[in-house]
């Protein structure tokens, strides 16, 4: 019982702080907590009395000292501090001091991670591979959207930014592509509240006549609303056995985000100010023209451009991406607590200025987290945050009217000076090439977004005192996440591409309202049967997710007007999606053989409104186990073997069970007619089955730790779109069937070669490799998923026996002729990804780097294709161009499918902790820190385009590396000053 209660309390330790009424049967224990090797004092470490009777929990002061009230008799004290290994000692009845020297916890093995709706487990004992990143690692270098800061730090996760636009836009993929048509986003849970990561497009694609107006609008995924400074930790539940507790929303993995909470003590203020700038990492290059070459290409109109200068050359990309305004961020937080109340309040104000003229992103937020204990058995946690997010994303990605910079620039010859103005300040009408001027667009066009969001959650726990070898805890938790996004896009009549439109001048107001609501009720029972610990949990969950998107598009605007009322052709659109799920679960965890063997098993049953049969319960089981071999060969060495099997699901999307009718308008009458998309009335969730085996270990008293995992996952009963023969009148039909497989290895190694009083050096490396294969398509022929590409210009294709991420198109043979049939030319998934993180501390100076290496993968470089088509390629006429252009002429795309390998220095930072002696006279100042940090500081890539991390179609189920005039990548550099009071 003792042990199991201790385990459990460990899990709940942060939440449960119980005031003790002093009595005659209590005593005081004092001591100091220091860092092993260095001997420096650890401030803020949590010292708690653990054991069958709950004890006090206190924090160490700046001197590392603590005083704790403990029951009379022998007690066990536990010390926890972020970044250090947990320590426990037994304090005899007569001993009044207990000092601790904590070793660094390089791999966060002492952190607890979720193992169920209401249960947690120390990573050291976990039966599955769960990655954990602490807030400290996330905050070092400013980031547009928090998930970007995971890059290079964890295994099994493939992060990719869709473009360099300010404000985010990142896709996160855990253990590969696990669906072809279903939802592809991981499930995000913030403080127990299911958090929307919707990407709601602006009207940019509409005004630009994009092929796929919604996907090509380069939407921000709403995880960008989180303030990275509030985050205490991010856990990534990769395997099905771990994520099975979230049922049919978990096939793509679950990301559990925990925000910072208050600790007991006097109020502490932290103030951080950052100032920095964004600069281009790469910009498009251009062909240089002579009068002769220009005359051949553009005819007589080109002659005028050579009148004053025989070799005119204007770096137009540099003129568009020339914004260098300072970016600013201010963060303030205060935390503290006394009695049964603890609080954490933070506010942030941020503004990033993009490299493209008049683009940028900003956010503001206010968070209040309160923890309250009621008596000694009830604890209440409340989290709430209001966030406002805004951005101006500019004009990038595909378009069909040259109203997007990258695309237009591929056709605008470098002898044209886009910045040249007429005497009255207007721009001259483009005389050669395309009817658009990107510089004019940056000045007149509007593409802005604003989101206001509230997320609040409450957790109520009750731990009745029942004594003996059993304990019981009830937890009820619930929360709501609502946001309102609004996008304004305006392309006024004066723009050159609007002047030639049949309906000149366009304004699109669009956006979405999202409301997620979830609650759960859980009971956890623990029982110590002497050598066998049992932990039983069961509960109920209810989830309701609703998203309404709307769009009002107006064309033929009154000149100068932008209100959607002020045009003649107004189209309104609204789409509501809603999903409700009810689930029950039960789980059992058994610990045997002195905690060496741990076995878990669980079952979740759920039914959902999006399934064809709303009354049917779908069952998702999981079972896992781990065995720890301690003190192997030598004291302090340990190896843990683990294996897990689990099943999760992926819900049908809203509407996949309905066959809708079209409602066209003709002659003032609204008709109804059959649409080309057929639904499936009996649609079911996809099912992911995964086997995961692994071993974790540590050597030299955890100076070196490692973990290795192999996984093999099959998704069956896939949501598929049959493409019926077009002669049926239907273009698509949803059905369930088929199977895809993802398998791979994840390896993490951490080593701390130097741990001395002056210098510590911690080095970590992660390696992720996975493969995928389409096993069975239920009789479907190879098909192109949505947003797979542009016809013969290279596409993703799903074909049995091939990787899910295959790119196909026409190749060329040895003679330079186009092959007769399309074949696989590439793969959008990398061969492997590696991350290297190094943290070096020398006295008060810390130096951190994170390097992200992607090996393999391919990009379809259509920007280069367009440059060749526009005859503006910088290497026009060279041998490399000639080879490529041969493919262009013959209708082969293979020369444009390029290597997407890269090495990026994601983060590099230097921080200086100002010694106290410098500011000892400043009243109240506790700490001061100065730092310099850069994100995406350097990139090495053989890619001929701007950035191999690119996705014209944004986040899609099948990762699509398509490059069509994206927003160029940028490096950000920030100077940070932090003060603590």
């Amino acid at each position, binding site marked *: 019982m003792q042990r199991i209660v201790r385990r459990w309390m460990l899990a709940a330790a942060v939440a449960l702080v119980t005031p003790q009424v002093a009595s005659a049967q209590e005593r005081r224990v004092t001591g100091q907590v220091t860092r092993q090797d260095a001997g420096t004092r650890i401030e803020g470490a949590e010292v708690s009395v653990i054991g069958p009777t709950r004890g006090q929990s206190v924090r160490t002061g700046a001197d590392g000292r603590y005083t704790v009230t403990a029951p009379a008799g022998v007690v066990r004290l536990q010390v926890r501090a972020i970044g250090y290994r947990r320590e426990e000692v037994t304090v005899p009845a007569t001993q009044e001091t207990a000092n601790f020297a904590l070793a660094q916890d390089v791999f966060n093995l002492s952190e607890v991670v979720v193992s169920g709706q209401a249960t947690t487990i120390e990573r050291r004992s976990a039966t599955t591979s769960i990655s954990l990143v602490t807030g400290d690692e996330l905050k070092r270098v400013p980031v547009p959207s928090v998930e970007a800061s995971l890059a290079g730090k964890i295994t099994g996760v493939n992060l990719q930014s869709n473009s360099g636009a300010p404000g985010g836009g990142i896709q996160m993929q855990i253990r590969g592509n696990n669906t072809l048509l279903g939802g592809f986003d991981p499930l995000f849970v913030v403080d127990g509240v299911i958090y929307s990561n919707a990407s709601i497009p602006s009207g940019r694609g509409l005004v630009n006549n994009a092929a796929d107006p919604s996907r090509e609008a380069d939407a921000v995924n709403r995880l960008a609303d989180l303030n990275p400074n509030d985050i205490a930790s991010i856990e990534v539940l990769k395997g099905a056995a771990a994520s099975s507790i979230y049922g049919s929303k978990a096939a793509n993995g679950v990301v559990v985000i925990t925000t910072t909470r208050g600790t007991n003590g006097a109020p502490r203020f932290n103030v951080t100010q950052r100032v920095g700038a964004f600069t281009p990492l790469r910009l498009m290059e251009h062909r240089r023209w002579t009068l002769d070459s220009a005359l051949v290409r553009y005819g007589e109109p080109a002659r005028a451009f050579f009148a004053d200068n025989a070799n005119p050359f204007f770096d137009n990309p540099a003129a568009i991406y020339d914004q260098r305004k300072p970016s600013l961020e201010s963060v303030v937080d205060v935390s503290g607590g006394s009695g049964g109340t603890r609080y954490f309040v933070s506010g942030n104000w941020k503004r990033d200025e993009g490299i493209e003229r008049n683009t940028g992103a900003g956010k503001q937020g206010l968070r209040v987290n309160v923890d309250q204990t009621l008596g000694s058995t009830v604890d209440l946690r409340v989290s709430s945050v209001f966030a406002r997010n805004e951005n101006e994303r500019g004009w990038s990605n595909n378009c069909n009217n040259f109203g997007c910079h990258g695309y237009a620039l591929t056709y605008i010859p470098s002898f044209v000076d886009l910045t040249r103005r007429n005497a009255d300040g207007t721009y001259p009408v483009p005389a050669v090439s395309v009817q658009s001027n990107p510089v004019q667009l940056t000045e007149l066009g509007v593409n802005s977004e604003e989101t206001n969001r509230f997320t609040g959650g409450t957790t109520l726990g009750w731990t009745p005192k029942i004594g003996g070898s059993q304990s019981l805890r009830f937890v009820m938790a619930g929360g709501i996440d609502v946001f309102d996004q609004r996008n304004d896009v305006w392309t006024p009549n004066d723009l050159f591409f609007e002047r030639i439109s049949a309906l000149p001048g366009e304004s699109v107001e669009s956006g979405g309202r999202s409301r997620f609501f979830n609650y759960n*009720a859980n009971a956890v029972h623990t029982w110590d049967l002497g050598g066998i610990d049992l932990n039983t949990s069961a509960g109920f969950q209810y989830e309701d997710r609703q998203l309404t998107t709307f769009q009002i598009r107006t064309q033929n605007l009154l000149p100068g007007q932008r209100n959607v009322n002020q045009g003649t052709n107004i189209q309104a659109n609204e789409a*509501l999606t809603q999903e409700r799920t009810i689930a029950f679960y039960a789980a059992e965890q058994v610990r045997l053989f002195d905690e060496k063997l741990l076995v878990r098993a669980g079952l979740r049953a759920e039914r*959902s*409104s999006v399934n064809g049969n709303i009354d049917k319960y779908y069952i998702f089981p999981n079972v896992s186990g781990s065995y720890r071999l301690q003190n192997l060969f030598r004291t302090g060495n340990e190896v843990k073997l683990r294996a897990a099997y689990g099943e999760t699901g992926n819900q049908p999307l809203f509407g996949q069970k309905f066959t809708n009718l079209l409602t066209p308008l003709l002659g003032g009458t609204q008709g*109804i007619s059959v649409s080309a998309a057929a639904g499936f009335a009996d649609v079911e969730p996809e099912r992911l089955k995964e086997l995961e085996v692994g071993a974790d270990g540590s050597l030299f008293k955890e100076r070196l730790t490692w973990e290795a995992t192999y996984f093999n996952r099959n998704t069956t009963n896939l949501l598929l779109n049959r493409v019926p023969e077009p002669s049926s009148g239907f273009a698509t039909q949803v059905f369930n069937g088929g199977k895809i497989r993802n398998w791979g290895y994840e390896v993490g190694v951490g080593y701390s070669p130097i741990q001395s009083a002056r210098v510590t050096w911690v080095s970590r490396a992660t390696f992720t490799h996975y493969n995928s294969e389409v096993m069975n398509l239920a009789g479907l022929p190879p*098909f192109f998923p949505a947003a797979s590409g542009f016809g013969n210009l290279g596409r993703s294709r799903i074909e049995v026996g091939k990787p899910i991420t295959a790119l196909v198109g026409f190749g060329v043979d040895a003679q330079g002729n186009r092959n007769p049939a399309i074949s696989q030319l590439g793969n959008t998934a990398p061969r492997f990804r590696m991350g290297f993180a190094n943290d070096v501390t020398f006295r008060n100076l810390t130096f951190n780097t994170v390097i992200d290496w992607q090996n393999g993968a391919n990009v379809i470089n259509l920007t280069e294709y367009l440059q060749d088509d526009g005859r503006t390629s910088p290497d026009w006429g060279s041998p490399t161009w000639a080879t490529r252009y041969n493919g262009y002429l013959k209708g082969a795309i293979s020369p444009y499918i390029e290597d997407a390998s890269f090495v990026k220095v994601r983060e590099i930072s230097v921080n200086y902790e100002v010694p106290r002696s410098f500011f000892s006279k400043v009243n109240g100042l506790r700490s001061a820190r100065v730092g310099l940090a850069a994100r995406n500081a350097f990139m090495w890539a053989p890619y001929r385009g701007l950035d191999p991390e690119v996705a014209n179609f944004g986040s899609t189920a099948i990762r699509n590396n398509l490059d069509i005039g994206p927003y160029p990548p940028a490096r950000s550099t920030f100077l940070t000053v932090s003060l603590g009071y």
Partner: protein
Amino acid sequence: MRIRHFVRQWANPRAAAPVVLAGLLLIGGCGDLEILNTNAPTVETLTGSPTRTILARAATGIFSQMYNDVATEVGVYALYGREGFNLLGTDPRETQEQFRGPPDPTGRHSANWIGPYQAIRSINTYLQSLSTATGFSPAELRASQGFAKTMKAWMLHRVAIRTGALGIPLEVDQPLGAPPAPFVSFTAALQAAVTLMDEGYADLLAGGATFPFAVAPGFASGFNTPATFARFNRALAAKMQVHRATFVGCATCWALASTAMNQSFVTATGLPNSLSTGVTYFYSTTANEPANPITEPLSSNRFWIHPSLLSGVQRKADGQPDNRLTSKSIAAGRSINLNDLIGTHKPIMYNSTANPALANLAAPIPWINNEELLLLRAEIRWNTGDQAGAISDVNLVRQNAGGLAPTTLTPASPTNDFVTELLYNRTYSLMWAQGTRWLDARRYGRTGTLPIDRPGDIIYPNMIIPAAECDARALPTPCLLLR
């Protein structure tokens, strides 16, 4: 202290646990998971037991789906038949694949069938619903069936002439998921379509005085009752028979065409105004109504007139070009060269008549009109022994539409010369309207006479079968031989 008291009272697990558990079950038991689709009506609206009102709306839906692919027929066939270029430059395929292949069975050509067949499914659904509907008079039922069969027959014909000798699936009225309908030959497809057209005609003649639904605005000028709609039916039937006679060499079809022509609205009176009498695809600037897909301001670089139409035009007595060229095209005042395709003149047949530099989204596109019927009649007459009548009809169009002198052909002229003259007139009368130049060149085996702008460019002999159609039969794409 009240809270403490409350907590203490409820802190007794033996008292509280059953309450908590009962509460959990209660919450779990309720919860409504029936969430309906509020975004659009679902197919059950049509297949259930639809009311008269719903069927009237379904008829409007059918009219609306007849617009499917009009943009393709006009804008894409115009490129195939070298009536023009698309030099906007945003899509390299416009100057590459469209002019020199290879045709992409999954790209442009995959969208080739879904529009017509989607309309056919709508019509089949409508016909099935009619068979169980109540509240219609027998005449109304016949009128509705006649309308639906006319539209279905025309859609089958449209799709058949695209793929030509490759054939099409015909018996597609079956549940989704059934094995794909078998292909029939070009000959059989054309015959089945016109047979259905004839059935529709019979229904329309028994269709009473009015349709039980709103007839689309393109029929407003004299084709909106069963009796007058029947004349539109006959006009299409005549055209279909002519296509049979020329595409697949049906010698007996000329006589059938002649019969149908005589029952249509063809007229030699009231010229030149009556040239445009007929049915149109009606367009409007009203939001959400269909808008003309071709029209654009003169400043746009998208559509251009093919130079061969400028150089090949016949001259009027005063030396000026054929009116049909000058009223349908205009010098842009600039020249565009995109990948060696050169545009100097823009099509303006759908632009504002007051100011041809401006787009007119409400410009109708002719579906079938008297000008086309006169030329069809000329073609029929030449082939049914009335060469003099044929020359007379050609001259009606030459003089009234083109302002040209009468043709120098005589009834004794070789048929080849007549065809040349006929196709000249069809090209200029139906310029940028339905891909006439391409279809005619194919009908008469004259694709070799169409201009080739660059070495390596080709004239498509037909469109290819969409990849999905081959896939559904487990045939490799492009699938050329089907049975």
